[in-house]
């Protein structure tokens, strides 16, 4: 592999670990927030009333739970995408044209589909919370780049499948 490619792969590996760390931190935050919602709800309502963040904090509990559950599912799918990408990058150093990599890319494609399907209800829930307060950013919804990424993953999976078949053919050639 040329030097510039191996440097790029090194950066990719480091970035993947960094993103994985951030996602792990986000999962931890969601779990802590979920625990707080479950255990310390009365305190949260009192605090929210004091700060004036929620106009009707008491009615927001189911939406907040739904929001955290959706976020957790999206983060879990993201972890799967990152782990598959790490395996892909690791195999690229030796021989990337193996049938497993076609499977990994297809799995990334489906995980991205899951993320985008989950982002729709996330958008609705976030919207319903946003209506009750001004201090809540928009979340989820559809984005074109994400759909392109899904298509790219599936096209690459097909390419790798063909590549693996060609490699297999070449392997027994003398």
């Amino acid at each position: 592999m040329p030097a510039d490619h191996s440097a790029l792969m090194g950066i990719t590996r480091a970035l993947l670990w960094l993103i994985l760390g951030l996602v792990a931190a986000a999962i931890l935050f969601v779990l802590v927030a979920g625990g707080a919602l479950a255990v310390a709800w009365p305190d949260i309502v009192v605090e929210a009333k004091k700060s004036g963040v929620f106009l009707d904090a008491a009615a927001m509990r189911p939406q907040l739970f739904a929001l955290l559950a959706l976020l957790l599912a999206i983060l879990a799918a993201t972890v799967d995408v990152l782990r598959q990408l790490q395996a892909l990058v690791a195999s690229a150093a030796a021989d990337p044209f193996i049938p497993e990599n076609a499977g990994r890319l297809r799995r990334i494609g489906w995980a991205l589909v899951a993320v985008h399907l989950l982002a729709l209800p996330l958008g609705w829930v976030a919207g319903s919370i946003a209506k009750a307060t001004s201090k809540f950013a928009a979340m989820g919804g559809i984005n074109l780049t994400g759909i392109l990424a899904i298509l790219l993953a599936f096209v690459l999976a097909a390419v790798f499948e063909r590549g693996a078949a060609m490699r297999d053919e070449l392997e027994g050639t003398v």
Partner: protein
Amino acid sequence: MAIVVKLDELLHAKRMTLTDLSERIGITLANLSILKTGKAKAMRFSTLEAICAELDCQPGDLLAHEADS
């Protein structure tokens, strides 16, 4: 595989070892072994040409077709 590689017979007739052939035609011993033992899935024309030139034979002397039993 219905295609039989008769490299062993040809080498025997020429009193040559697989290692000799490997050194003369520049194809690795490992690859020639794969060919000799019938484990190869395909053969390049360049390999066929090199072996035929070195062993002074025709492709038909090296390869034969036997019906699968």
